[in-house]
């Protein structure tokens, strides 16, 4: 009985912290694990790699032994996603399956496993907010709500002009520069694809970044805190100011 009471209390506490999440199973993938035909995502729509990307495909396949073409499935899906403006239609997955000579279901399995493969439409600039603990305690929840309020969308929804969408991401390794967002830039196809971190953001700064993207500019990546250099502390280093002292070594010239 005590256990039941404890679980109820835990549920209440959880609810108090995050009233929005009603999800019982955490699914990071934006799309369902089965395909529903829509006018721009159907199996019979033709899709193939562009001529430039065919070269890239050959180059990617050369990394793997010729009898293990299947190993190239992840890089090829990534390339297909970049080419198609940030998401993978079913026909793209079928095309990748043909290239690596496996049944399409094997490619579907890989694409549904990884949440970075978007199987539903995303914006040209896909904004991903890190939501893991170090960023969270530094205010990533505020960053996310600022973005969602500014763009007027819900999570994983695309804005009406098709330019922006906001998603949550796992830790991307910039805990020293928390909170941070990353912007996957699909506006120039696979040639102009960039994936840049914008770290040390504040709710105001993140809105400025979004507006800069809307105007077509490319704000400088990395830490948005002018007083920091990469992951160094504000105001400059307090240690490691000079050359490191070499370790003591015996006199090598003697005898």
């Amino acid at each position, binding site marked *: 009985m005590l256990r039941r009471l404890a679980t109820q209390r835990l549920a209440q506490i959880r609810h108090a912290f995050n009233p929005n999440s009603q999800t019982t199973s955490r699914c990071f993938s934006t799309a369902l*694990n089965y395909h529903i035909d829509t006018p721009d995502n159907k199996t019979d729509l033709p899709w193939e790699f562009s001529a430039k990307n065919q070269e890239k495909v050959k180059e990617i396949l050369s990394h793997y032994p010729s009898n293990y073409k299947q190993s190239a499935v992840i890089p090829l899906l990534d390339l297909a996603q970049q080419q198609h403006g940030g998401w993978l239609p*079913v026909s793209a997955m079928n095309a990748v399956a043909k290239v690596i000579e496996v049944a399409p*279901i094997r490619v579907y*399995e890989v694409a549904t496993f990884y949440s970075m493969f978007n199987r539903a439409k995303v914006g040209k600039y896909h904004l991903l907010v890190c939501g893991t603990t170090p960023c969270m305690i530094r205010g990533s929840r505020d960053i996310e709500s600022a973005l969602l309020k500014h763009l007027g969308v819900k999570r994983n929804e695309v804005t009406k002009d098709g330019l922006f969408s906001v998603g949550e991401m796992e830790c991307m390794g910039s805990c020293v520069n928390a909170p941070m967002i990353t912007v996957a830039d699909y506006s120039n196809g696979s040639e102009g694809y960039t994936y840049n971190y914008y770290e040390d953001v504040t709710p105001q700064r993140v809105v400025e970044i979004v507006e800069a993207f809307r105007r077509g500019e490319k704000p400088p990546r990395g830490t948005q805190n002018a007083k920091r250099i990469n992951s160094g502390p504000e105001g400059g280093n307090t240690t490691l100011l000079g050359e490191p002292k070499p370790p003591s070594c015996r006199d090598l010239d003697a005898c």
Partner: protein
Amino acid sequence: MTLGQLASRALRTSRPSSLIRTIISTPDLNTSSAGAAAVSDAPPPPPPDRTPVGGARVHFTNPDDAIEVFVDGFPVKIPKGMTVLQACEVAGVDIPRFCYHSRLSIAGNCRMCLVEVEKSPKPVASCAMPALPGMKIKTDTPIAKKAREGVMEFLLMNHPLDCPICDQGGECDLQDQSMAFGSDRGRFTEMKRSVVDKNLGPLVKTVMTRCIQCTRCVRFATEVAGVQDLGMLGRGSGEEIGTYVEKLMTSELSGNVIDICPVGALTSKPFAFKARNWELKGTESIDVTDAVGSNIRIDSRGPEVMRIVPRLNEDINEEWISDKTRFCYDGLKRQRLNDPMIRGADGRFMTVSWRDALSVVAEAFHQVKPKEIVGVAGKLSDAESMIALKDLLNRMGSNNVWCEGNGLNVNADLRSGYLLNSGISGLENADVFLLVGTQPRVEAAIVNARIRKTVRATQAKVGYVGPAANLNYDHQHLGTGPEALTEIAEGRHPFSSLLKNAKNPAIIVGAGIFERKDKDAIFSVVEAIAKQGNVIRPDWNGLNILLLNAAQAAALDLGLVPESDNSLETAKFVYLMGADDVNLEKLSSDAFVVYQGHHGDRGVYRANVILPAAAFSEKEGIYVNTEGCVQQTLPAVPTVGDAREDWKIIRALSEVAGVRLPYDSVDAVRSRMSTVAPHLLNLDEREPTTFTAELKPECSEKMSKDPFANVVDNFYMTDAITRASKIMAQCSALLSKK
């Protein structure tokens, strides 16, 4: 099903035996020293011999390589390479499992098979761990038990409480194993996840919320059925088994996932909500929808056949049956002939009594000349009825009896000329296959599965001559007609060198060739290829014929060979015993046709008299499959209406016609059969062929240029029972490969 026994065994052995004390009776108490000596002197009885369990058989390919492991203290010798789970099975200990299946690859994802191995820091998944020499495996320790309880708790966490509405209840692995190995309570208080149901077709019902993600169906579809349709999508607790895009399971072996699925996620759609498994009586029988003779168990409740499930037979069908076998049973309930009928003068049938019907037929018998009498045995006829038909017609002076499908100019002289000489299990030893005019995927799905198994295991090469076919293994399409065969025989084709260098080449000729006019020429070319490739040797006969019907092999063994080829044109009395696919166009309009069968299929349209007979599920009949294995069906349900068994009808007719046949019981018929073909009494045994084609005289016919045709155009509707079945009609509409 075996896991039910597993449950009782586990409950039995869980009682600690140390609590049982021997009670010493009073006289020994007085003589205390003698009593103590008597108790301690008697040596403990040796432990009972452990027999392998779970269908495990040990086969030492290299007896010197045997290693010894200890299972619960019991030493057991196993060949090198066996897994811990297999070693425990040999030792007689059944380990619970969900994802492991002896005929599929090892997945190791359910973790139910965890056992404790000495010197291992954690319990090991016995299905995946190879057994090393000297390993001490313990399956009944607290660690193993706790592991099983924990895994069971995890599996039940997201499993819906569907037992009352789930078809798998009563034969569910999850139910049985949670009773035997699970704990009595769970600690899960969250919301359970639910999954959208997928549409896999009219045969397999999916309730994917019940799925425990064991991936048996995925591995079956990929490995055994050869269609890569199913996969595991997503990850973690949101994993779903599905086809991702809306795709129906069109494989002809798709019904086997129903048996394989340990829970009620994949069940039989036609059987949904019809019966519980404990209500059903199982009758071991044989399937007659094709020539494979798969072993089945007909589950019936009262007079109705509720479902058909496979039986294990390593040599023929392993554990699989095709969809046609599995789902044809509802055809047994529709369009049945249940009363004798005579066509009146107005062309309509009237129901009459047996006496009247038989007397009308007998009268017609005597009004025609002997050479105008013709008898045709149908595809589903058993051997008893065929010998009775032949005897009756012989006594009336005619020898124009044949079986459907054996074509013109039938040659039953050499058994090797019409059987699968290497045997279905012998096909596994072949390394090169040449398929001539046969599409095994639709003609004999189980033989196709065996070929696929061989191709997968040993990378055997397959060459195929015939119309473009969709085989589920890599094959070379060598040509479409007899010219390709001539090329191979003369060595001009690159495939001929493959054949010559093969260790055990197998040539499979389809029985569709029997219907061609140049049949002898084709067979002589095939025999020439066989001679060149050293296909027929004392230790290996690779020249195989794949028959189409269940009755063909027995008919040829019993000598149902007509005297003349066009006897139908001049016939005035035709006796159709279940024969629906005979071409009666050339028959004169005043011929008297008797149809004796169990379904009102095509044969009745021309019939003058209908005699209702019993279907295969209602009679005890001997059938010979395409490899020559003699098996019998057993009656599972009573016949419909006034129908009788085929041979009994013929025996009664013979009495009324004045040419009484000398047998009155099944045994008497069988002893008559044994005078013609003695091997037909050796049930479940395969009589191998002895004389080969070298005895045949030279053939001088010319081969025609016609390409080989598709013999079976609709896999789902090939005989009277399947044509009457609603499920087969649905499958044919939705699943037929375009």
